[in-house]
């Protein structure tokens, strides 16, 4: 009875929802893809055309001929008449890698301590970590700038490195702590009985099991350090040799004689490494490493 009733009634709630959402889903996906991917696509296309073509017909979406000369000029050093992005890339890369290394070095034991050790004020400490982000960066920027200038770290990559590490350690500890807490305590107890000291437990048990979290944290920190602009501007603006990519790009954008194609090529160069690293790391961001540890 119920079935015949349902098949007769073609416009029941379930059928309507299935159809409406079926259409709506693709619509939403299409809009989102367009909104996010189109600027990137246009940026890449602009960077691959010659300047006069761009000036003549800016709206062309698929150029008749590709021109990589812009990239060559962006990458050649200033001495040879280019923009010297190779140096910026190197600076950004060095800073980002060092930031990741230093941050993880501090965040791994820190996160472990908060997740596993019992000490007075443990909860307060972990709440304080996030309190750092209550302050807008600009609020910290000025005092830090003055302070670093006084102790002679202005204009040095080391000063910038310290700021980046200080900014990324709290969020890294927060991310890692949550993951460390998912590692079963009995695994660590087992390792302790097997003869491990606390540091050996971290090295042999906690870290391998937290690898996905370590990778995503590292990636996140790398992105922050790579893209960061405000502090780079404050600390490094004077000396072109020390510019990072994002700083270089904005400095160039500020000057009128720089063609759009060069800016676009610079933007592509700023974006590509992040995308590349993400795809390389993606396979390591797997979940479920701890399955099988305990009775499933």
């Amino acid at each position, binding site marked *: 009875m119920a079935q015949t009733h349902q098949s007769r009634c073609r416009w029941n709630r379930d059928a309507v929802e299935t159809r409406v959402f079926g259409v709506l889903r693709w619509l939403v996906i299409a809009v989102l893809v367009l909104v996010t991917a189109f600027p990137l696509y246009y940026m890449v296309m602009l960077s691959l055309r010659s300047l006069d073509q761009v000036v003549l017909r800016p709206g062309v979406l698929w150029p008749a001929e590709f021109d990589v000369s812009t990239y060559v000029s962006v990458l050649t050093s200033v001495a040879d008449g280019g923009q010297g992005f190779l140096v910026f890339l190197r600076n950004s890369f060095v800073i980002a890698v060092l930031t990741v290394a230093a941050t993880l070095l501090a965040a791994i034991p820190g996160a472990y301590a908060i997740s596993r050790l019992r000490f007075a004020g443990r909860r307060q400490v972990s709440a304080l970590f996030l309190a750092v982000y209550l302050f807008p960066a600009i609020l910290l920027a000025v005092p830090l700038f003055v302070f670093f200038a006084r102790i002679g770290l202005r204009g040095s990559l080391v000063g910038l490195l310290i700021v980046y590490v200080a900014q990324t350690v709290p969020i890294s500890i927060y991310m890692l702590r949550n993951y460390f807490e998912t590692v079963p305590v009995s695994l660590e*107890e087992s390792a302790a009985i097997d003869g491990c000291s606390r540091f050996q437990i971290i090295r042999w048990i906690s870290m391998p099991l937290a690898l996905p979290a370590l990778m995503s944290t590292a990636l996140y920190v790398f992105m922050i350090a790579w893209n960061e602009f405000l502090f780079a501007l404050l600390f490094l603006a004077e000396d072109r040799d020390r510019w990072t990519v994002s700083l270089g790009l904005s400095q160039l954008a500020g000057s009128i004689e720089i063609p759009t194609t060069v800016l676009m090529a610079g933007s592509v160069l700023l974006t590509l490494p992040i995308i590349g690293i993400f795809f390389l790391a993606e396979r390591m961001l797997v979940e479920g490493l701890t399955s099988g540890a305990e009775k499933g």
Partner: protein
Amino acid sequence: MSTVSYDGVSRTYPGNDRPAVDRLDLQIDDGECVVLVGPSGCGKSTSLRMLAGLEDVDAGTITIGDRDVTHLAPKDRDIAMVFQNYALYPHMSVADNIGFALKVAGVGKAERMRRVREAATMLDLQELLDRKPRALSGGQRQRVAMGRAIVREPQVFLMDEPLSNLDAKLRVSTRSQIAALQRRLGITTIYVTHDQVEAMTMGDRVAVLNGGVLQQVDIPRQLYDKPANVFVAGFVGSPAMNLIRVPVVPDGVRLGDHVVPLDRATFARIDHNPEVILGIRPESCRTTPQDGPELHVRVELVEELGADAYLYGTAALGSDRHTDIVARIDPRCAPVTNAMVRLTVDSTQVHVFSASSGQRLSS
């Protein structure tokens, strides 16, 4: 291989008034297997974890051999432990899991592999050495956990309910394997379980705990035949011993219309108390008429187990007093529900406990 001794060991968890383990005294001989058994929350796991160094000791000392290990780190105690959940390292192969302790101890690769193979052969794990734990069944994981313990040749084995995650059939076979392995290796073993059948079958001696207090330590037979108090009497044996509060009369105790005679030593220990607790094992009751005190029982349920049957009923103890009673009966002449039967109690097999302290009074 070593002796283990607990001397007045106590542990109170922060925020609790009552100690989880209260002044535990327990001596374990070299090569002996002692089972700690008791209901959940009785402190058996805490006792084991204190020996492992995973739990702080608030008072007393623990020694392994002649070393005081009370405040040593787990890694310095030379013990191996099998966890209830196995706690296998999920990112390592079976071989690496078994060999991990040796690797940490700095044993060379060739020697390590030799010993891992040896342990794997003992546990029938040779085929699985390259697998990861998640690709193993529950029983295989359990064997890997065992392998991880035996490869070390430690002073003491600790086992924390190692069988409770296996299904019933596998549990029985693994139980005998572990017992055989323990005897072959001759390593001092402390085994924690809440299952009294495991306790009775695995242990050279069994220690019964309740509420953090050690009740009795003895060989399984003694534990069953001469339980030291009401708790042990009720805990050991399945179905449990019938414990009935009965009045004391001049030459014994009154059970229903009859008097159960007591020997003089027991009587002396009753010390003018008006009441005692009488313990009767289900197998000490007979449905066939025999000499001895009788109980009139209304049958409520008969559990047929094949070889045995258990009768659950209500026995009249006088004008208006009744008590629940369980008796083992012959399954071929089991009564029907609501029938009235006469149970004869074997008066030589009864246990007498103090009604006030619960301690054993009969010898």
